[in-house]
């Protein structure tokens, strides 16, 4: 199926998604197997099949505000079940990345983008993720200061949260990875 897009900017979005994900979206014939198995599409406004169809039908950057892009849990069910071998989870990764590049992540579902940044920041600093540091950075940024605080005393008592940052990782290599991948 050849999808001809009328609008240049729109065509760029589907092209960009295909370029980043390596997926040929023209293979999708809307059987919706991806959507039947999607754990979050029952709760949010759109579905994986709908996202792909909207890309076919010249969706522009407004598609990046779809809740499912950031509600997707990367469970890989769509990827595993697609009869045409479309990697739906990679399509969602691509849409998230474009959303971040275009600074739209702050609008619709910016909490996940913020969490990812906080998580990766601790990896960049310590070579391994540091949960308390990540949770603190995420809470400060998201304003969700009180969420889950009821569980912290028990978690600390049970030794489920490490107080000190992780040690022992090859920090030099990890720092190099972050430096090199940011230069692109």
């Amino acid at each position, binding site marked *: 199926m050849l999808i001809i897009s009328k609008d240049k900017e729109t065509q760029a979005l589907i092209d960009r998604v295909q370029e*980043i994900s390596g997926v040929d979206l023209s293979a999708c014939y809307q059987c919706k197997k991806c959507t039947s198995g999607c754990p979050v599409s029952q709760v949010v406004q759109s579905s994986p099949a709908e996202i792909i169809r909207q890309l076919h039908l010249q969706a522009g950057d407004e598609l990046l505000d779809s809740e499912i892009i950031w509600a997707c*849990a*990367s469970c890989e*069910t769509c990827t595993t079940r697609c009869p045409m071998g479309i*990697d739906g989870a990679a399509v969602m990764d691509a849409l998230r990345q474009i959303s971040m590049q275009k600074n739209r992540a702050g609008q619709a579902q910016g909490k996940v983008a913020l969490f990812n940044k906080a998580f990766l920041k601790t990896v960049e600093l310590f*070579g391994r993720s540091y949960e308390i540091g990540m949770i603190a950075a995420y809470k400060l940024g998201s304003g969700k200061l009180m969420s889950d605080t009821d569980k912290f005393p028990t978690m600390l008592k049970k030794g489920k949260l490490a107080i000190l940052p*992780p040690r022992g990782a090859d920090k030099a*290599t990890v720092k190099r990875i972050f430096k*090199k991948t940011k230069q692109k």
Partner: protein
Amino acid sequence: MKLAYFPGCSAESTARDMHMSSLAVAQALGIELIEPEGWSCCGATAGHQTDRVLATALSAASLAKVADMGLDMVLNCAACFGRMKTANHDLQDMGLRKQVADAIGRDYDGSVIVRHLIDVLLHDIGLDRIKAATKKSLSGLKVASYYGCLLVRPADVMQFDDPENPTCMDTLVEALGGEALDWPHKVECCGGGLSLTRTDLVVSLSDKIVTMASEAGADCIVVACPMCQVNLDMRQIDIKKQGGQDHNLPILYITQLLGLALGIGPDQLGLSKLMIAPDPVVNRVTSA
């Protein structure tokens, strides 16, 4: 046998119990686990959602260290396991391999064999040896094996058990004398890494899974992923608080349950770290 053991970041915090029970079980069954010096984060969900080169390079950095050791890599964390296998798979793309080589400062070809501890237990140690080492029977214990997402998906990359109806943990439970329940939510998603950002989704998905296991008659759920464990265990508190059911269903790592059957003490398996106390399971097995 000797393997390079990648604990994963959560082994040092929320999943210390997974780490402790992996070490204890391996020792009891004669598996020598060696931590690669300087191992680093696999990038997890945040990594692949952010950038493919970053995600692949973060996993490749540790894989390259294991390549130098000349050993296979073994993991208990399903999430790290998935990232390592995906990195090896994706590195077959020469363009990506070059970018990753530039990022980590050396070439790595994706050749380290990456295995999950359950696979090693079933296929290298074998059920006969495990049965011979068993000191306590799980007789009468009804166990719902929960595999979640990342152990089995995406199927063509993971090539680990049946992606829709995996049975490896069930096989182990049955070998230990327990009853492996036939239940429909083995590979449903708990919401994974969305625990802090979309707690609403995670609470609702975890509730469905725990409810189904309860209705199937489970005495406990066994898992092999720190995200599954934390969500199914800790979110039971939220389910109750939000007016839902008080499931009070213990969520154990498969290595903790195996450890109990091998006669290893609950303290050595980190069983006191679970939010939902596993006492009924522990008492039943240890008094068997």
